């Protein structure tokens, strides 16, 4: 027990460090871009309408003051951490004066739902099928699945989303291809609302999952085909232990721990894939918000979303680290 607590403390320390360093990197990268939110604002305010050059000068001065962009980068840095300590990312620069936290709060549940569903589905299905394929190497169906999985895996998220969209939104239009829920519906725990949410999430989840299923499948299959040659599996077979028991408790069970680590390490990458998928399907999540933030030079918003995603991914990694000793008892000792 004490060793577990020590393990836990060390992991937590690492978690804090990772989040701190990560957010710092994002802070300085966002502040190093030449995109100026004031100029962005002026540009959008004058692009179609009146554009008296004298007026633009007045507007520029007023906006600079309002956005508080005149302080040095160190002042901004201190302000940022002071605010962050209270869970506040300050006002959005492209949706001034709405706070970044409000914007993220609206989008986060959608992304969380989309990501957790697709990741969970892909991880379970991919690992299960990959495990079978690694164990029953001769099975033709599984071999075929292996080829399909290998083929799906390298397809960029964008292409996959587009293909899925064309297939089910155009050639065989059975599923909604836009947004998170149908228009004008009243949100709440009603069958129609939840059903609509589920239906709208199906294609994004499918296109995200198809790619990652392939990756898990391939990874699990090669893991399993190594584990099958391990002494304890051979010995168990020699002892006439039940085949299903060997497959589940000996082979898959031992592959689970590395695949779980793999999951933790790939969460960041999965988030990247989700961004583009959200954009293609117009899904109201963080990805869409992020792309808009980037496009409008709203570095408060970009910084907020990047921080949230760092914290979320690091937390997930931390949680998986906590679970890991339950899966692999050897870890405690190390």
């Amino acid at each position, binding site marked *: 027990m004490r060793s577990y607590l020590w393990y836990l403390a060390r992991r937590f320390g690492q978690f804090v460090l990772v989040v701190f360093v990560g957010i710092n990197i994002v802070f300085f990268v966002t502040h190093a871009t030449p995109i100026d939110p004031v100029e962005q604002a002026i540009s959008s305010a004058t692009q179609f309408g009146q554009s008296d050059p004298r007026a633009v000068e*007045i507007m520029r001065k*007023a906006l600079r003051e309002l956005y508080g962009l005149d302080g040095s980068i160190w002042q901004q840095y201190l302000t940022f951490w002071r605010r962050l300590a209270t869970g506040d990312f300050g006002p959005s620069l492209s949706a001034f004066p*709405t706070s970044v936290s409000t914007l993220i709060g609206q*989008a986060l549940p959608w992304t969380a739902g989309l990501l957790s569903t697709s990741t969970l589905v892909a991880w379970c299905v991919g690992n299960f099928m990959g495990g079978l394929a690694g164990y029953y190497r001769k099975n033709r169906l599984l071999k075929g699945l292996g080829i399909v999985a290998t083929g799906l895996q390298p397809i960029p998220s964008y292409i996959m989303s*587009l293909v899925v969209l064309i297939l089910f939104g155009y050639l065989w239009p*059975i599923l909604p291809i836009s*947004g998170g829920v149908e228009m*004008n519906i009243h949100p709440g725990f009603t069958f*129609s609302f939840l059903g609509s949410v589920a239906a709208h999430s199906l294609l994004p989840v499918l296109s995200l999952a198809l790619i990652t299923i392939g990756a898990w499948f391939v990874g699990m299959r090669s893991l399993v085909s190594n584990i099958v040659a391990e002494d304890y599996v051979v010995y168990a077979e020699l002892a006439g232990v039940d085949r299903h028991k060997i497959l589940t408790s000996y082979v898959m069970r031992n592959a689970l721990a590395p695949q779980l680590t793999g999951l933790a390490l790939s969460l960041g990458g999965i988030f990247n894939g989700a961004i583009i998928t959200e954009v293609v399907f117009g899904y109201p999540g963080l990805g869409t918000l992020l792309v808009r933030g980037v496009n409008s030079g709203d570095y408060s918003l970009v910084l907020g979303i990047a921080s949230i995603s760092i914290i979320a991914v690091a937390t997930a990694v931390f949680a998986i680290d906590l679970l890991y000793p339950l899966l692999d008892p050897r870890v405690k000792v190390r």
Partner: protein
Amino acid sequence: MKAALFCLTATFLAGSISEQAFAQASFLAGIPRNEVLIAENPEGRITNPTWFNIWVVNHGSNSNGLQQLGMDTLWYIDPDAGIDGVWDNSLASDKPSYNSDFTEMTVKLRDGIYWSDGVEFTADDVVYTVETQMKNPTTTWGPGFLASVDSVTAPDKNTVVFKLKRANSRFHSLFTVRWNACWIMPKHVFEKQADPTKFEFNPPVTLGPYTLKSFDPNGAWYIWQRRDDWQRTTLGRFGEPGPKYVAYIDPGPPDKRVILQLNHELDIIHDTTPEGVFTLAKQSPSSHFWFKGFPYAHPDPTLPAVVFNHDIDAFKNRDVRWALTLLIDMKAVSMASYRGAATISAIAVPPTGLYPKYYFDPLEDWLKNFEIDTGKSKYKPYDPTVAQQIADLLRPTMGDKIPKDPKEIATAFGRGWWKPNPQVATELLERAGFKKTGGKWMKPDGTPFSITMLVEGDQRPVMTRAGTMIVQEWRQFGIDAKTQAYPSDFFPRVASGDFEAAMAWSVETWGGHPDLSFFLDSWHSEFVKPAGQRQPPRNWQRWSNPELDKIIEQVRAIGFDDPKGVDLGQQFIKLAVQEMPIIPLMSYNVFTCMDTTYWTGYPSAETDPYTDPVPNWANTKYMMVKLKPVEKK
């Protein structure tokens, strides 16, 4: 094992079938499809959807229906013909009246106009609008008022008097809608707020014929409902708006918009690619376009051009600018960018609305005789048949979609353009001190002549395509030219002067009205910033010219409707041809696609060009009174 596989497959199938059941449900809950007009909001998903205070910079959204259906202001100028002429007195009952030296403007307002909460609209609202924004320069129009207005008063409930700081014959344009203008604020709502710039204005109290019904907290859609008292709005003069509901939605990328219209789930596409339009024209018999055939699109009164940065030495020389112009084959650019569906322009105003009548027809002969003298040879560059040639080029594949009548071709494809001539270009470049060595052009200082053309990438696909083609033509001539995609931060970067050439526009006009001051006033040399400082809109090219200043000063001295305006406009165009500060290309053609499955009465170039159908223009409100539901058979 096989059983496990089977179970898995079965679960999947069952899952997808039950999902299908949900999917077949309507995509718009609780509203009959034939009562709602669904239009694209080209701003996409709105970052700040709960924000309806349109008067602050960086507010939520313009074209989510707010400015089209909810807002109103004094005057509208239509980019096309207009329902009742180009000029519409909206909240004002008459045109603006200035005193003789343009230091005072008086406005008379209509009676019997009411806000959607039942409060009457009065002159106090106009005064409040001006004064509040002047107090808050972070508002969109506040700085404009600060620059011009000395005081504003309301002698009675129907009259507003503006005293101006200096002579300004175009002051009314702040209240005159081209695409938008300063909208009138509801004083009775805003005066209760301590800080009007921090007020969400949710739900908005509207002056237009619709009110907000519901909207997506994630900013993807807004649904507006016709006001029961629509007669008490300015649009009441033209009859009842057809659609009971109007939805402005984010339909996603261009291909998805096409798919949505094919599925009849999007009545008005704001813009898509030329190829997308061809697909609709072929596969969707119910789709309607501004032009029945080519170019389908609505030409907006904006002039995409090659904008040179005149701070770059090479582009200071007129000969270089003209040489680069004479290397462009407009037919290829038109094909590459718009697949031929462009409306080309050789001169520095867009060939749209009523401008052919004001500028193109009168100048055609002058253009034909315009001559370039390179010192070695003389060349008449204008080829009046370019549009005709493009039409001929398209006819074999597009057949009857291409008009035959020269007049129709002129409206659809434009008129002439500059005839490419590498020989003349060479002579001009050589006169400017450039040299060609080893197949590469060198600048007078001996370094390679390289041009990086800034394009907007996927933010403006068609312009990007045009830019790529132009660069290719320059490259084939031996100039080290390339494009650089710089989406999203494009105009701020152009304003900063950190570019060589850009596919952009610095010319925008009223379309329906010949006055050019909308863009031209800002081209005065008094506003040109030194290199390194930000250039205010719209003289992105930082071109300054004493003759130009003279023309602008003369325009300032005459009234908006003064017939001398057209004359001065023609002078400007001739100057711009001689100097070629930017290379004019075409009008900004917007591929607006309208589905007639549920609604008819859309505007059309051939039969009824009553307004611009492009749904992010505030003028879209005029379309509502013309739209009628399709009778179910």
